[in-house]
């Protein structure tokens, strides 16, 4: 894979659709070599977890 910009685009799109095998493979290769993008990848999952919690009334359940 060429760039981190492209890798983040694919990681974002993978939240909406299953990536074709070719894109999956090139993303995997990029992630193996790029620590910041590995962090980004985990953060996409965290963002989803946070959003889900927010939509279930997370702030209303949280402690001061």
């Amino acid at each position: 894979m060429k760039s981190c910009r492209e890798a983040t685009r694919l990681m974002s799109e993978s939240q909406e659709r299953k990536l074709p095998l070719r894109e999956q493979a090139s993303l995997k290769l990029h992630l193996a070599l790029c620590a910041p993008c590995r962090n980004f990848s985990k953060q996409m999952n965290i963002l989803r977890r946070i959003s889900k919690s927010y939509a279930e009334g997370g702030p209303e359940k949280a402690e001061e």
Partner: protein
Amino acid sequence: MSDYLVPSASSETRAHDSLENSQFLVDLRQQMLRFASLQLQDTQLAEDAVQEALMGALKNSRSFSGRSALKTWVFAILKNKIADILRQRQRFVDADHLVHGDREEHDHDELFDQTGHWQKDERPKKWADPESAIHDKHFWRIFEACLNYLPSRQAQLFMMREFIELESHEICAAAEVSVSNLNVTLHRARLRLRECLEDHWFGVED
């Protein structure tokens, strides 16, 4: 998500008592209104949706085992109502988006260098476990501030996707965007939101 749409059959009445506690109701209603208004951009519609969701909860309150289960359920109802409203809405055109839609290509320029790699000080760092964040009211204030900081169109589509959990094709129909436009917009929203959360919460040393 269907597992929490149906109230549990527990006979405990703590949730029922909660609904008779007016401070609890006031706070809950406030949070629901914020949630609905953010997405519908229409106070009256938001009030109606919240009202209906709360009425449903009052009717069924005896079947909840506790406040937390009740809140989860009330928000699930509210989410469904918002989803219905968004799906029915023929269009909501954002004039700002129409004018500035062609700037999208250049939006990430400050994050990446010319070769498309992360700028040195923009590289995503490791984040701590999110579980402690979601139990912290301060975190949610930051989260809402970061959402508000997004351009309105980005926030709108992001919320349809992540909060209301509409599928791409549903968002494209309701918001009148192409799939590629939606993908670009969600990508931008996630880049910005991620950066904002790292700058103001996850990347802050304590």
